[in-house]
């Protein structure tokens, strides 16, 4: 059997000691080269799961492995080369140019006191090209639209040239056009071998791009498997407690919820 790129074994985690854990008995494994979507109502522990995968939060119990090795055995720097986070939103305090900001993604490859080289700038610029906003390279990150800023965060993650991309509700600030672009970008990355784990509130997005889906509720994984089998009307109705139907239209599954 192939070693999964990322796996959780009986992971338990909570934010405050002596309270109920937020995640409990969580098992999950990500296959390399696949897009996995985590679905679940607010407070199900989706973002917590991402932060645990990143190594930013430490589990109370259980093991999280990256390529078969516990993540605490990796240095932060190596983790930064293997995994990149695209946060839901980010506070940017100063007017960096887009290129300067994306260049920060090269940090895991540079010793603490070293300056980025021309090669690093080139990688950062190519990351901008990949997400289709290279023309904005000289704009201020604070002077572009929210959707473009989200794409800048994607580019910064790509500048880390990671094996695994972690996206936290990537479409929450995007209009329809940018959502479509993001879907195409993710599919393009997958074709180049990237493994992607994303949380989302939109079953449509999961159905459109993900190979695998994970349904979470109250800190546990309810069902996991191929998206078409997991994101069914029945299952979605159960976790969101609203009637949901999945109807195939022109060969694609569409989510109907009203």
């Amino acid at each position, binding site marked *: 059997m192939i070693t999964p790129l990322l796996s959780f074994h009986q992971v338990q985690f909570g934010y405050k000691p002596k309270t109920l854990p937020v995640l409990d008995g969580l098992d999950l494994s990500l296959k390399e080269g696949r897009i996995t979507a985590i679905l679940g109502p607010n407070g199900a522990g989706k973002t917590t799961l991402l932060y645990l995968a990143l190594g930013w939060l430490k589990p109370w119990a259980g093991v999280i492995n990256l390529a078969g090795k516990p993540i605490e055995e990796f240095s932060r720097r*190596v983790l930064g080369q293997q995994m990149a*986070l695209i946060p839901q939103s980010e506070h940017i305090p100063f007017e960096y140019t887009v290129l300067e900001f994306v260049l920060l993604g090269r940090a895991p490859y540079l010793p603490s006191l070293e300056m980025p080289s021309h090669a690093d700038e080139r990688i950062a610029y190519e990351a901008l090209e990949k997400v289709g906003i290279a023309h904005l390279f000289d704009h201020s990150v604070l002077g572009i639209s929210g959707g473009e800023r989200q794409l800048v965060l994607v580019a910064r993650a790509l500048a880390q040239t990671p094996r695994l991309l972690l996206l936290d509700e990537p479409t929450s600030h995007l209009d329809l056009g940018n959502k479509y672009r993001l879907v195409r970008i993710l599919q393009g990355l997958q074709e180049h071998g990237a493994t992607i784990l994303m949380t989302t509130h939109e079953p449509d997005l999961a159905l459109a791009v993900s190979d695998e889906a994970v349904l979470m509720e109250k800190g546990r994984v309810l069902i996991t498997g191929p998206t078409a089998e997991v994101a069914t009307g029945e299952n979605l109705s159960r976790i969101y407690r609203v009637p949901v139907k999945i109807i195939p239209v022109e060969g694609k599954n569409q989510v109907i919820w009203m």
Partner: protein
Amino acid sequence: MSSVVTAAPLQKTFTRNHKRQRILLWLGLALVVLFFVSLLWGRYPSVGLIPWQQLNQDELARLLVVNLRLPRLLTALFVGISLSASGTVFQTLFGNPLVEPGFLGVSQGAACGAALCIVFLGGSAAMIQGLAIVFAFSGLGASYFLARRIRYGGWVLRLVLSGIAVSALFSAGLGVLKYLADPLRQLPEITFWLLGGLSSITWTQFLSILPATVAGLVFLILFRWRLNLLALNEETAFSMGAAPKRERLLLLIAAVLPAAAIISVSGMVGWVGLIMPHIGRRLFGSDTRYSLPASMLLGGIFTILCDDLARTLLAGEIPLGILTSLLGATIFIILMVSRGVKVER
């Protein structure tokens, strides 16, 4: 294929970074020239420059330049460089353009320590300096540990809150000391210290602050690109291989060290640490790779100019802090309302 497409915009970036480096070099050169001109500038024998021949003949002029002006100018240089560097680092780490090097209890701590020394311990220069530096660091320590005990809010908010609280305690203490001080002897001395000035700087004082100041500044300069990373959210910085808590603390100490050392000999020199980082960013962009050295050089130039005015404008000495605030705030206002001022960003 991509090299053909990417060449133009990237080349533009490379050229600009090159240009920024060149401008930094010119700023450095301007600073050196200003330094040597200022060495000859003063009120001896009359207002203006001491002629070069006179230095060879006049023993008094030589002593004046070597023993009084040189240590004073070097201190002014380090006041500017240190406060601007710490200011830039503080503003970046806290993601807030309103903080200045002394706000974590450092300035008020130093002031309280100096006043304590003047009122109760006689107030020799060395003792004032020693107590000011001890209190500056206890201010920082108190702010840091209080921030760790606060049970809500993010790290930045907690540090800002505890910095405000600790500063308030020290300034209350300073108030008590002023009230207790002998209004004829001690109170003027406290006031003069609070206004900041370099009129009585000696070689001993300058040399005593040199090691800590240089160590802190060298570290900050070497760390200047990675500093950008620590302006980001903690989890984002972590995801890019940083240890945000440890690295921030390290930078905080490296930034406070020169600032506290400088405040202990110069007193409160206001506005340098607040506006030079703004001007640096305004002229060179937010990337601390360039804005940090830029603000340091600008800070050095600004403080030396202010000190030149402080010692020659009137027959008596004008406290340096008054001039830095007056000119600093004026420049700040002009900069904030004008749009066109920028070198390359």
